[in-house]
């Protein structure tokens, strides 16, 4: 066997690909990262499309980036800094608003305006969620346990979880099981009576999914908001200074420092195989590069169906990959603004502009938005998650000017007339978004200097996200843990020898956590695979 130039080739320089590469390089392996675009980060990118304005083009907040990764890779030294995001502002069409933040007393008073009862139980709810959150957090820091295995190590792992729960095991397991299977609205209705508070909280459960707030399985994501570490080393949500792309830049710097090579504008056309084993890659320009292992940081569909190819795979495996659901459901509109937007519900400057601005006035509104999408239309009145990061981080826009990031749901990839009708409807989509938002921010149209519109179609074309799915595959129960991406292949290995996967399509899934990339690297190193 001829010695390969590289121990590992990582396909895709998104945050997971870079994390994986950094860990492998840190362990002394020769690593090459190949990125199709001219910058690192994939969907974790900062982009300047209008002079002086920096958009966090896709991913706009950092959620649950693992503290041990930050420490292992010494990311702060490489420019990683998270700025807190604490407020959630929900304006209503009738001119009222709800502003929640990190101050329990202030939040209690804000909720009291809508329901005295809800104000009283809000704190208790937070505590209960926090306890459950701490319980499940270990799951995202380890490979997924496999309940179908008879392997003693696996059973020990499951039992270990049971032991951790101690005497209240049954109670906690039941609560956890309920959280995983209930709808966000049903769960919140067990605690709260105000529809407005419920709607404002429930939307966390649907971000990036093709589900409604009343769909079972949406309650679980609520836990993610309560997983903050006690030592305060990180928060559940925040802005990366310099835009989200700065996370990827810091990871890239760490990887390079450890000796990894990152090649940009080097799109991979296919995974090379020899005797049923991945041996390297063929670039789009025809170059061939060999390596002992190939690690894919692109999504499972693209990995198996494009880079490997159906013809080289077992038909049963192809069937399983094809039924792994990718359906994208969201889009992004990024705006360059000439000034500070002013909300009708709360005019003037204030704390409410610095955090998360949620357009989710009531449950029926959210369900109607979902109904549009079910039948192949983008929402006429969408749910929107808006942030103005330049208020917190002035480096993102010229003085006095701002960038606004609008996450929009629902925007189904499969429009009734076909996904390829998206380009023709891109402007209509953006207009719908801006018109809806203008109902809350009357001066918005006057402030817009530039807009970047990313439909699911664009997310696929530009960032390689199949069907525009921001999580590399839906985060529905049947596609999580030991079933992600495929039953029997949830440990970062794939059925093709020498090919590994390390991104959001694997456990524990999407969001800027870094866990899939790091866990894949650990699996490679611990298993002495290279």
């Amino acid at each position, binding site marked *: 066997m001829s010695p390969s130039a590289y121990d590992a080739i990582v396909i895709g320089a998104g945050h997971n690909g870079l994390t994986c590469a950094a860990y492998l390089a840190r362990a002394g392996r020769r690593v090459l990262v190949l990125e199709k675009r001219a910058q690192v980060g994939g969907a974790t990118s900062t982009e300047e499309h209008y002079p002086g304005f920096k958009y966090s083009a896709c991913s706009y907040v950092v959620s649950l980036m693992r503290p041990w990764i930050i420490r292992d890779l010494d990311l702060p030294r490489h420019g990683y800094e998270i700025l807190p995001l604490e407020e959630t502002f929900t304006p209503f069409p009738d001119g009222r608003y709800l502003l929640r933040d990190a101050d329990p007393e202030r939040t209690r008073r804000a909720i009291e305006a809508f329901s005295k009862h809800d104000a009283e139980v809000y704190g208790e709810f937070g505590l209960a969620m926090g306890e459950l959150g701490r319980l499940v957090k270990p799951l995202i820091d380890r490979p997924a346990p496999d*309940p*179908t295995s*008879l392997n003693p190590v696996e059973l020990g792992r499951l039992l270990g979880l049971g032991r951790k729960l101690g005497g209240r*095991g*049954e*109670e906690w*397991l*039941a609560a956890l*099981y*309920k959280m995983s*299977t*209930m709808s966000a609205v*049903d769960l919140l*209705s*067990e605690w709260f009576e105000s529809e407005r508070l419920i709607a404002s909280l429930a939307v966390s459960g649907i971000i990036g999914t093709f*589900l409604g707030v*009343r*769909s*079972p*399985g949406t309650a679980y994501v609520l836990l993610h908001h309560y997983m903050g570490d006690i030592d305060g080393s990180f928060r559940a949500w925040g802005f990366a200074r310099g835009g989200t792309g700065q996370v990827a830049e810091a990871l890239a710097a760490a990887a390079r420092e450890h000796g990894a090579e990152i090649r940009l504008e080097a799109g991979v056309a296919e995974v090379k195989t020899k005797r049923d084993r991945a041996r390297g890659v063929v670039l789009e320009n025809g170059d061939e590069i060999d390596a002992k292992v190939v690690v894919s940081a692109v999504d499972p569909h693209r990995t198996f169906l494009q880079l490997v190819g159906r013809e080289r795979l077992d038909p049963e495996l192809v069937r399983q990959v094809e*039924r792994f*659901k990718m359906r994208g459901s969201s889009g992004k509109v990024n705006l360059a603004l000439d000034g500070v937007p002013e909300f009708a519900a709360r005019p003037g400057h204030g704390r409410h502009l610095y955090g998360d601005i949620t357009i989710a006035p009531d449950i*029926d509104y959210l*369900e109607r938005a979902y*109904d549009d999408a*079910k*039948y192949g239309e983008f929402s006429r009145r969408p749910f929107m998650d808006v942030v103005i990061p330049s208020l917190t981080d002035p480096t993102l826009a010229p003085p006095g000017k701002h960038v606004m990031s609008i996450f929009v749901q629902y925007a189904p990839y499969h429009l009734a007339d076909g996904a390829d009708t998206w380009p023709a409807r891109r402007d209509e989509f953006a207009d719908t978004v801006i018109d809806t938002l203008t109902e809350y921010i009357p001066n918005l149209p006057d402030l817009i200097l530039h807009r970047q519109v990313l439909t699911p179609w664009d997310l696929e074309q530009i960032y390689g996200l199949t069907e525009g799915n921001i999580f590399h595959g839906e985060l*529905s*129960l*049947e596609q999580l843990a*030991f*079933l992600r991406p495929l*039953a*029997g292949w949830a440990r970062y290995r794939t059925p093709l020898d020498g090919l590994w996967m390390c991104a959001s399509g694997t456990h524990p899934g999407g969001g800027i956590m870094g866990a899939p990339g790091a866990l894949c690297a650990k699996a490679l190193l611990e298993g002495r695979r290279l």
Partner: protein
Amino acid sequence: MSGPDVIVVGGGHNGLVAALTLAEGGRKVTVVERAGALGGICARREFAPGYHAPGLVSETGRFRDDLVESLGLAAHGLEFEADESPTLAPDDDGGLLLYEDPSRTARALAEAEDAAALRDWNGFLRQITPAVRRLLDAPPPALGPAGLDDFKGLAGTAWSLRRLGGDTMTELLRVLPMCVADWMRERFASERLAAGLAAPALTNGYGGPWAPGTAAALIWRQCARGRTVRGGPGALVDALAAACGEAGVELVTDAAVRRIHVDGDGVDAVELESGERLEAPRVIATCNPKTALLDLVGARYLPSDLERALRNVRSRGIVSVLLLAVADDLEVAARPGEGVDRLRLGAESLDDLERAFDAVKYRRRADRPYLEVWIPSLSIPDLAPAGCHVVTALVHATPYDLAGGWSNEVREALTQAVVHRLNDELPGLREALAGGRLLTPPDLEAELGLPGGHLGHGEMALDQMLFLRPTRELARYRTPIDGLYVGGMGSHPGPGVTGVPGRLAARALLADSE
């Protein structure tokens, strides 16, 4: 004269099964039923002069075979249909005949590809049925540290799952949380077949086919299917009542319960609306567990966690029952002369089913609801005068909390809309209409004591199944009140005419008092 050992609250199928099981165990039992007749949702009822419905529900095929045997019901006249009668999902082309047995549906299907897919699906279902049935027929596995008495059951369940083999078990675990629409579309090319197969999964739930967890409901149904009782639910009740009579069970009707009395830590008597007080050291409540514990016992006797959990049990009724008296001969137009007596309407596509449920979300009724139609008089002639017929329809997407309320105008409009739709499939029905009765969810609540009007004592949903049905604390049929048990459809394995909750509650009682 000494009182009974056990009082069973509710004379529905589960109450009667519980009573028989207890009698078998040597207990002296009294059953108290609020209505004038036994049976609850299975009771035969005259809804127009000379016209009877054999029950409010139409399915009896999930009543457990081993119960029939162990309770000796055959000796009391219980018989089964020799053959399964199919359900027709009509279309412009003669319609699709759907059997509970997928392999029979396959035989009746023209499209070879989907017929093969059906056989493949049937193969999967047959593989998982023994393990799933084990789960359905036993108390739900405990989550926490299992006691010794539990260990055998738990080990058995684990072993039966393990025997499935890795791939089948993984596939079962993958499918359980899915939505039935995705599952059916994975397997079948024809939309109307996918919709026709998916529709029954929605019967006791609160969601459309795109709601995660509906695949589990379909698996539950498929794995529990058995033989259909001849004469319908009413005939099953007759046999159970006859067996009770012979076993010395006292059956009291027109005896609504006002309170279940607690003395100290335990139950000591049941007080009827009439003021009569029946003393007994043990009570099995087979009504909705919310009614039993919150209304009849009273929240002040319950730990606050349990009270909260019970109030959070969701039982939002969205199904109405329409009973029609037709003074003429009836025949399904699409299949003349074939004796088809069941129809599935409004389930032509998955989107149809989903749109019908969309209306429910906004507290409206669907314009084109999913209808489960049965013409019981075709197989049970004594339900109606000679030459006449009874039609029953479960009308979905008719929410309990309808915006604007269930006024007479709204009720009439719904009845007319359903009659109009039925008339397309059963020509002449409208002209020959001799009477009828619409039971909306609020009617079902008022008449049968079903909170929310839910026919299954609580929605089927992933978080209201197994060890969480009706709540974690009550999942083993025992309650914090000594001597009080719950054993209706609100308990595992849940909705449908299975008799299993009643039997398992009675067994728990017997085990505790041995």
